[in-house]
């Protein structure tokens, strides 16, 4: 199985369903993510995006269906899953450097590999200068960059991001989105980016899945085959943005 660019399917989500008592939140969701793909998921507020990600990351059990990595049921102890939460989740007692290294430590990467990866990533995201500071000495946006770096550092099979830049101002968001794309292109990770910001989704993703209102299912799939770096005023960009906006509006 390959995607439209001929890439192998890495992640497969089959019949993902989640109920809370009688409330059906996720309704038989099916999709695949190709190896090295940047997939964005957009949906209206309250459509169960967080539940969806919690199921995918195995933080909560599913009611039916599952997520498969290379054909096997995903298991955080076996597969490399990484998650960037909405809120910055740095460990306050670790320096910037040790926070970025943290995921690799939990996964028992060898020391020299950790060192090398750390230096590469810290330089790539411009955190090398502040590597020895503690999180309470840096700004909120930097904390989120630390979390993003920590997630990329483990060479994840799947990197999930839950509106990581939702709380930042627009200028910083553009900057961090560019940085994210740079990381993704360099490290060739498979990324699943959840956001309610349509423009952001069209800017970063190769493909967008549009979620419906609760009970949530996938309503549409939109390919974003625009060259990079993308421009927000490119007519094609505007067209795709409008298309996705319409899809979200028509529930």
């Amino acid at each position, binding site marked *: 199985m390959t995607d439209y660019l001929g890439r192998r399917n890495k992640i497969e989500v089959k019949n993902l369903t989640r109920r809370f008592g009688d409330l059906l939140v996720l309704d038989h969701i099916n999709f695949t993510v190709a190896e090295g793909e940047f997939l964005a998921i957009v949906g209206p507020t309250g459509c169960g995006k967080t539940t969806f990600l919690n199921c995918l*990351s*195995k*933080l909560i059990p599913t009611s039916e269906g599952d997520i498969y990595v290379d054909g096997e049921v995903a*298991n*955080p*102890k*076996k*597969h*490399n*899953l*990484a*998650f960037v*939460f909405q*809120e910055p*989740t740095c*460990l*306050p*007692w*670790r320096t910037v450097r040790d926070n970025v290294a*943290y*995921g690799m430590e*939990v*996964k028992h990467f060898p020391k020299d590999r950790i060192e090398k990866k750390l230096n590469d990533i810290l330089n790539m995201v*411009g*955190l*090398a*200068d*502040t590597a*020895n*500071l*503690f*999180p*309470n*000495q*840096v*700004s909120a*946006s*930097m904390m989120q960059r630390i979390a993003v770096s920590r997630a990329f550092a*483990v060479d994840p099979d799947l990197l999930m991001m839950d509106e990581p830049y939702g709380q930042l101002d627009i*200028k910083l968001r*553009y*900057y961090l989105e*560019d940085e994210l794309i740079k990381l993704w292109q360099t490290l060739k990770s498979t990324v699943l980016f959840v956001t309610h910001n349509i423009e952001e989704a069209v800017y970063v993703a190769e493909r967008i899945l549009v979620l419906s209102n609760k009970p949530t299912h996938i309503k549409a799939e939109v390919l974003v085959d625009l060259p990079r*770096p993308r*421009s*927000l005023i490119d007519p094609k960009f505007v067209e795709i943005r409008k298309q996705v906006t319409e899809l979200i509006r028509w529930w």
Partner: protein
Amino acid sequence: MSAMIKQPTNSGTGDRAIANEVQEAVGEKKPMTIYRVITNEYFLYCVSTVTFLLVWQVIGQSDMFKGALASPVQVVLRFDRMLTDTLAGLTLWGHIWASTSRVLIGFALASAFAIPIGLFMALNPYVDAIIKPVFDIFKPMPPIAWVSIAILWFGIGEPSKIFIIVIGTFVPCLLNAYTGIRLIEPELYDVVKVLGGNRRDEIIQVSFPASFPAIFAGLQISLSNAWTCVLAAELVASRSGLGFIIVQGMKMSDTSLVIGGMVIIAIVAWTTSLLVIILEKLVCPWKRKLEGF
């Protein structure tokens, strides 16, 4: 789009890379004026302390309290003598050490047991369910209430005093270790879980370090309780210690001895709490900037 945003530069500015928005305190240079000097915090500290001592001195020298209030000068002179003269076979240093050693032993014993128990209770619901009911019975009991029973059980020697200190310090140590763990943000555990960490990773990497600040806050409260307890124990029955000095001063109507004893306790207790602060800074270096140290 990215062209309009300045890229972070590695221009050898160390921790001050502007693009990385490091939070730093910036001091502004202002010219010295009389207004600035008299509104200076430290200047006002001095003014208030000196005024207090002067008023005390004047009242002490006057006949207002009929000799029941020693002046600061009298207190200092009295304690200068205490450095060489002995009271019940000990100099001032001996008495200071007698109290301090009791405090340290009791405090160390209590924290060695209370902190692990508090951590266990917070981390394991079964341990919590077993210990909490009993703990809740003892929790509201003031430690001083134990003085009489301690003397009946252990006599008037060292063990009874240390027992009271242990009782007085146990509760805040345990409670703070317990709440320290309970108040950890659940997202921090999620970080470990998603990365495939096990329960051991969660406890060692998140629970313990996250609870340190609360534990140290508990140790500070415990230490001040320990000084209250040692004093109570020494006032009731003792042949040494700062409480004993105060009782002797009372028996001999020597107010400079009583007041001096009080002042020395304040100084020694403050010094021991300073040691806890230093220890905290060593164990929790990440808290430094937050607390403004």
